[in-house]
C-alpha cells in the first residue's frame, strides 16, 4: 500500500506501531535515531513520515524543519508527549500535517495515517458549492441537506460534522479528529460531544432510511460511506 518511515526511540512502541501498520499492508521502515531517519528520508521516497518529537540526537521537530527547508513535501505525522497548545502550534509551524499526542489508541493512528495518505493521493473535492454522495447531497451556500430529494433540517454543528464526513468518505475518522476539525478543540471536553452530535445527525440522515451511511467502528471511530 504505502511506504512509511517511522521514527520512535521507544523499542516497544516502535514494534507495536510497525506491526499494526504492517498488518494494514503498509511497508514500514523503523528508526530510533533522528540522524539515521533524516538520511533515509532524504535518500528514499516515502509516502508518509511518522516522527516522534522527542528522540535523542536529531529530534523529530528538527528533522521536519530540515526536510521542509530542503523542499521535501512528504506528509508528516508528528507523534509527541507534548500536548500544549504552543507545542502544537510549533509543530504545525515547522510544517507537520498532523499532530498526535501520546498515549494514543491504535485506531487513532490508523485513522490519521489513512487521512494523510488519502490527502496525498486524492485531490480534495475543492470548493464546489455542492457536495454529493449517493442519495445524500448538501448545498454549502444555502446550508441545506437533501436525502432522496427530502430536505433535512440540520443545525450548524450537524451541518459542519456532515460536511467533514462527506469530504472524507470511506475513511476512518476518530472522535479526537472530529473534535479538532469540526469543533476546533484540541482538548477533550470530557463530555460526549462527538457521540451525541453523531447520534443526532444519524437520527436525521440515517434512521428514516434503510441504508445507513455513518458507521461506528470500535467505539471511537466513524466511517462515512454513501
Amino acid at each position, binding site marked *: 500500500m504505502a511506504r512509511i518511515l517511522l521514527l520512535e526511540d*521507544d523499542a*516497544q*512502541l516502535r514494534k*507495536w506501531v510497525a506491526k*499494526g501498520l504492517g498488518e494494514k499492508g503498509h511497508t514500514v521502515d523503523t528508526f530510533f535515531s533522528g540522524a539515521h531517519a533524516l538520511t533515509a528520508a532524504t535518500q528514499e521516497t516515502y509516502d508518509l513520515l511518522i516522527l516522534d518529537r522527542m528522540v535523542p540526537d536529531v529530534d523529530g521537530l528538527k528533522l521536519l524543519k530540515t526536510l521542509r527547508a530542503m523542499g521535501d513535501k512528504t506528509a508528516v505525522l508528528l507523534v509527541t508527549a507534548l500536548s500544549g497548545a504552543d507545542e502544537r502550534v510549533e509543530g504545525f509551524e515547522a510544517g507537520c500535517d498532523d499532530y498526535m499526542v501520546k498515549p494514543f489508541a*491504535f485506531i487513532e493512528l490508523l485513522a490519521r495515517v489513512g487521512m494523510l495518505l488519502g490527502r496525498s493521493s486524492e485531490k480534495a473535492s475543492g470548493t464546489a458549492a455542492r457536495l454529493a454522495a449517493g442519495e445524500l447531497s448538501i448545498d454549502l451556500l444555502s446550508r441545506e441537506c437533501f436525502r432522496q430529494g427530502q430536505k433535512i433540517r440540520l443545525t450548524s454543528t450537524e451541518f459542519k460534522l456532515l460536511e467533514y464526513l462527506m469530504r472524507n468518505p470511506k475513511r476512518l475518522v476518530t472522535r479526537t479528529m472530529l473534535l479538532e476539525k469540526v469543533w476546533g478543540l484540541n*482538548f*477533550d*471536553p470530557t*463530555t460526549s460531544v462527538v457521540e451525541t452530535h453523531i447520534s443526532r445527525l444519524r437520527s436525521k440522515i440515517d434512521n428514516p432510511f434503510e441504508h445507513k451511511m455513518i458507521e461506528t467502528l470500535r467505539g471511537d471511530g466513524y466511517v462515512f460511506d454513501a
Partner: protein
Amino acid sequence: MSLMPKFLIRQSYFRLVASLSGVFLVFQGLVWVLVSSIIEETLWEANIAELYSLTLELERGHLHDHGGDVLWGVGDNIDPSIRRAFMDGKCEGSFLPGFVHVFELYEAVFHVEDEDLQFEDSDEEEGSLAWGEIFEFAYEGESYIGEMSSDGQTLQYVAVKIDHQRERIEAVSAGIFFTTIVTFVSLVAISYVIALSSQRKVTKIQTVLSLLSDGNLSARCDLPPNNDDLSSIARRLDDALERLEVVTEQTRLFGKNLAHDLRTPLARLRASLEGSEKRHDDLTAALTEVDRIASIIDAMMRIARLQSEVSAASVTPLSLSSFAQRLYETYEPVLPERKTLLLEVDGDWVIRADEVLLEQAIANLLQNAIVHGGDYITLFTSNGVIGISDDGPGVLEDQFDEIIKPSVRLDPSRGEDGAGLGLAFVKAVADHHGARLVVEALTPRGIKFSLQFD
C-alpha cells in the same frame, strides 16, 4: 508638556527637594527682613549721630562745609521751600513729650515778626528751649533726614541727604532677593534633572515589574552601573529575575520531561493492552484507566502551564453572546435526558480572551454541573461575565474557597476523579485572563460559578 509633569509631583526625590526649597524660601525671606531692619536701624542711628554733631556745629557757629549732602539754615535764612519740605515730611519720633504739632508752632514762629517769641506752654526750661525733632523728607527729588531745633529764639535746621543710604539698603535687599531666587530656581532645576533621571529608572523598574506580573520573566531593567539606591534596587531586581527565570525554566523543563516520561510508558502500556490477543472486559477497563491517567496528566500540565506563563498571544476580542450561543449549540445535545441546559444572554459584551481556554473552562464547569449539579443547568452571560449555574445541592459556603484549590483533588470524598482538578483549571484560566472566578450559593438551592472579566 505641562509646566510640572504629573510624574514629577509623584516623585519622592522631587517632593523632598521642592519642600526643602520651600523652607529655604521662607528662611531667606526671614533673613531678608532681619538684615534689612538691622541695616536700617544701624544707618538710622548713624544719621542721628551725624545730625547731632551737625546741630552742635551749627549752634557753635562753625558748621564745616559738607558739600551738597548737608542742608542747613538759621533763623530768617530758612528757605521757605525747605520749610515746606520739612512740613510735608514724616516726623520720626518725638524727643520732647507733647510736641506733636511741632510744625504749627514753627509756622507760628516763622510768621510772627517777633523773634523773641517764647514757648510759654512748653515744659522746657524758659529761655533755653533746645529741642529737636527728626524728620524724613524729600527735597528737590532727594531724600533727607533733618533736625529742626531752637534755643527759644532762633530757629535752625540741619538735614543730611540719605539717598545713598537708601540705595545701600536696597542693594543689600536686592542682593538677598536675587541670590534667593537664583538658588531657588537652580534647586528646582537641579532637582528636576535628578528627578528626570531617577524617573527614567523608576519607569524602567515599573515596566519590568508589570511585565513580570504578566508572566514575562525575561524582562530586565539593565540600568547602567551606578551607586544610587534606584540602580541598586534595579540591579537586585535583575538578579532576582535571573534566578527566577532559571528556576522557572528548570521547572518547566522538568514538567515537560515528566509529562514525556509518564506518557511514553503509558503509550507502551496502552500498546501492549491493545495488542493483547485476548480482548476482554478487563482489558477494556484497563485501557479506559490508561486514558484517564493520560487526561489527568494533561489537565495537570495545562494548569501548570497556565500558572507558569502568561502568553497573551492568543487573546482576541470575543463576543460573549455569540460565544455562549456556540457553546450552547455544542453542549446542549450532550446533556443526559433528564437534564436541561438553559441559555441566558443579557446583552452583547465583548471581552478579550483566549477562546479555546475559555471554552475549556466553561466545558469543565458544565461537566461539573452535569456530574454534581441539579437537573436545570444554566449557561449565562452578562456584563463581562460568563458562567454556569445549576439547581443542585451545591456546596457549603465555607468550602467555596476550598473547592477551587488544586489540592482538593486529593480529597477522597469528592469521589469523581478530575472534578477538583477541573475547578482548579477554571481558576487558572481566570487568573490567566486577569478575571475572577466567583462562586455563589443560589436560593433556594444551587450553585453559580461566574468568570468575571474587567
